[in-house]
């Protein structure tokens, strides 16, 4: 390895650590998706339909989050009601 190569390689140091970081995020995301129950999208759609009977909200107003911990599963529902709905009530 020549002196030039030495400097060149030390400059490019770090692509492996970038790869590792990207993979860690990606794999964690893939795994959480994998363990989600398959009914989640349908659940989200039906909840939205019920809410829409009463309030005008769009699809992005409902978020369903699923988390799995050692001994329990958490289903988190987050519904953002529009300002007008609150005023009416």
């Amino acid at each position: 390895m020549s002196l030039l190569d030495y400097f060149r390689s030390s400059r490019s140091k770090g692509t492996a650590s970038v790869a590792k970081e990207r993979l860690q995020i990606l794999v964690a995301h893939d795994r959480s998706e994998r363990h989600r129950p398959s009914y989640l999208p349908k659940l989200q759609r039906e909840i939205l339909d019920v809410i829409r009977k009463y309030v005008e909200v769009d699809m992005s107003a409902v978020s369903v989050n699923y988390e799995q911990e050692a001994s329990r599963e958490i289903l988190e529902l987050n519904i953002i009601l529009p300002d007008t709905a609150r005023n009416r009530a």
Partner: protein
Amino acid sequence: MARIIVITSGKGGVGKTTTSAALAMGLAQRGHRTAVIDFDVGLRNLDLIMGCERRVVYDFVNVINGEASLNQALIRDKRCDSLYILPASQTRDKEALTKEGVGKVLEELSQGFDFIVCDSPAGIEHGATMAMYYADDAVVVTNPEVSSVRDSDRMLGILSSKSRRAETNAEPIREFLLLSRYDPARVANGEMLSVEDVQEILSLDLLGVIPESRAVLNASNAGVPVILDGESDAGKAYGDAVARYLGEQVPHRFLTVQKKGFFSRLFGG
């Protein structure tokens, strides 16, 4: 009863067939009666890597369809009496592998063999899921490269949900990592994921690390499983992996840059 081992990866070109040939030969050389099956219907290659492509008469699909007996289709390796090869069909559709048909063939093989090595095709389609469905053990072949690592993780998810063991709530498949095409010099330069990096991401038992080696291409050119090239780094690394699979404690080799001797520096080696 035979132990069924699937060699899988998700991604193509990472060394599944090279690994299948090497592990099967290694197990057979140690006296275990071993059969190695090519599941890549339509793109068979194991016969080439094993060097028995001109002796193929019947194949896996013929046996499943009852057009040939298992004994007619199995090819005995000329170098090792305990090793048999069951080639894939080159002409059929991959759907020819039915779950029942594959199960029946594996069941029959189980009677006469100690180990059955299943060489999976790339991807997560039918052939790949058939190759892993009946497995007891899985060797996940991974290159230290982002797409291969990601695909391996995807494969692990499939192994733990879509195999027979998963469906019957039996003891889960034992999963091993085999890291291939490893280049210690590039790892030292920070250009390539290290064994530790890949292990940390996949959290799997490490069966072996196969260094990037010219011996692999030389071996496939000649139709000789690389494990038979006992002088080569890759051959030795596969030998170690077989020993580890059988429960021996063998330290990992070829993880650091090999210092070149004076003569190899002088003449290039």
